């Protein structure tokens, strides 16, 4: 056991705890240093700090899906396994975003392969029931992801990161590990394909034509 690990948590470099609360790390550099030391409390803090980001990216990529928790778990397992390779602590956020993007894309690809192996058309594959919005909202969200299912994986990821997870273009490029120009090209192609395919889905077609009512707003 290292000297740092032998110290009480609040005495380790960069970490302190407030009365009655869990240990706190001042910034990502402290957090990464603690993770490099194998500090288990740092893992908890990392998950608390970055789960919302990962959730936003994964949910944006997969939609309302019963496997979101599995994918988020996979992302953090990847983070813990690879944290020692991360040298620049300031890149922690973008590195986690990249892991989330690639893990979600891997899940989408695996599903596509699975469907092919089952020799079933996508619409014949039974959906896993999940709780979520019903009625027209559900119909439009489902239609959106059905259309996204028809897009090439890279274009789909760029599209969902930009429009659903609402990332900046530069963030999308970093997360996808491609140039800004490539992201722009992918987005342009994805947008064209999406609008074209949306014409076959009334819930989307009407919305894109008239901007109808959705019925859900942010709290």
């Amino acid at each position, binding site marked *: 056991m290292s000297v740092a690990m032998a110290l009480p948590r609040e005495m380790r470099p960069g970490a302190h705890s407030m009365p009655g609360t869990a240990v706190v790390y001042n910034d990502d550099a402290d957090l990464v240093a603690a993770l490099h030391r194998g500090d288990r409390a740092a893992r908890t803090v990392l998950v608390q700090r970055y789960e919302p980001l990962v959730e936003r990216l994964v949910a944006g990529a997969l939609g309302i899906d019963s496997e979101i928790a599995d994918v988020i778990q996979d992302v953090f*397992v990847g983070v813990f396994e690879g944290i020692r390779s991360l040298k620049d602590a300031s890149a922690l956020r973008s590195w986690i975003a990249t892991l989330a993007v690639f893990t979600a894309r891997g899940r989408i690809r695996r599903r596509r392969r699975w469907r092919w192996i089952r020799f079933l058309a996508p619409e014949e594959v039974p959906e896993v029931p999940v*709780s979520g919005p019903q009625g*027209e909202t559900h119909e439009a969200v489902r239609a959106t992801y059905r259309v996204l299912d028809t897009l090439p994986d890279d274009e789909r990821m760029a599209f969902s990161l930009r429009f659903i997870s609402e990332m900046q273009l530069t963030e999308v490029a970093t997360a996808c590990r491609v140039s800004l120009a490539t992201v722009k090209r992918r987005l342009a192609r994805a947008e064209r394909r999406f609008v074209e395919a949306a014409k076959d889905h009334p819930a989307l077609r009407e919305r*894109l034509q008239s901007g109808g009512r959705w019925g859900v707003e*942010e709290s």
Partner: protein
Amino acid sequence: MSELENLMRDVARTVQTDARRRQLLPEIQARLVALDEKRRPTGAVWRWSMAGAMACCAAAVAFYVMQVQPVSFAVDGVTSAGTTGAVGQKLAAPDSSALSLRFSDGSQVTLPPRAQAHVDDVDNKGATVAVDEGTVEVSVVHRAKTRWQVRAGRYQIHVTGTRFAAGWDSRQQTLTVTMREGSVVVTGPGLKQGTPLVTGQRLRVNAATGEPAAAIEDANVPEPAAPTQGQSKDEQAEAAAVEAAPAVVVTEPAAPAPAREERRIGSARTRRAAPTKLAQLDNDWRGFEARHQYKEAFAAAVNAGWDNYCARLGADDLVKLGNVARYAKDAEHADSAYQAARRRSASADQPVFFLGRVAFDLRKDYVAAGNWFDSYLKRFPHGPLALEAAGLLLDSRLKAGDNAGARDAAKGYLDAFPHGPLASKARATRGQ
């Protein structure tokens, strides 16, 4: 901002709201801790892992054995309480009491006094029961790959999971099937391609004359449902009114009528069975619906006889049919399908909600819409559409200019969904 961006922003809100509602963080934390513990093997953990693996193997073997094991059955009667039944053994209920066959898959066949039957065959997916005389009550438990049949003379009733009565008059060679729940397909003389039957229908068919003399009538047979706990008297009365709604007249589809010989049997509520045409027409609108071509699906359903569908389909399909009309922006037909769904199943929540949506979206009748959503929330306060119903109730009251009603709706919304997507609007309405 483009419509696409607006649309995607709404998708994002919906998806993110759903993810937040599921509160994944504690689950992820717990999973990661559990995973971490698993990755630190100790001698004890290793032993437990081995024991667990062996238990899983044993369970898998047991599952396999259960899967390949044919169902068995016991006979309960006056003189034979729970004795194991044998395939082919003639069973005759005494003059004054019933005989009950209890199957290992949970299904049950009851022979009322003087009825006669025997179990023809059993396998791992179900059984074939032959009715020799009288009317038997059948209750089949639905499982994956269930294969159950009831045979009567030359007729077969193909069952998945359902309850019905099958009567066989061996002298008159007449089969009567009365559906209580679910659906079956009946094949045999006079029924070329198989006749589907759904809840509330009764089929009588005679094989003796050699002529197709089948009749399906709306039997209005569902047993009265017990009042749901927590329902008010008004709600119970409403539910009872739905249950007691007059039976729907079954009519022929409009389009194929000229080619079909039609002979009314008994009352005006009976009709000749025409399974092949109906099945083909049925496929038309369902095919369009599956491809999201709602206008085409609507046209196909209207062409084939909308009222006939409303009389024949089960509650789930009626909701689907109503959605087709709603997407095609035909309020009248949508209403008729949803109302039929309500009559078919008083406990179904979707018809009530979608009647509200028709009033809100198509008729712009916000008072009526509010009443439907209010009704939904009273009857199904924890229903899957409660969140949307509460939001739409608030919107309906606001659009109707009913400020007091809107404040009540806002209070109800915040009580039930304090972090719901319309919580800020509800707070604003309440003046907080």
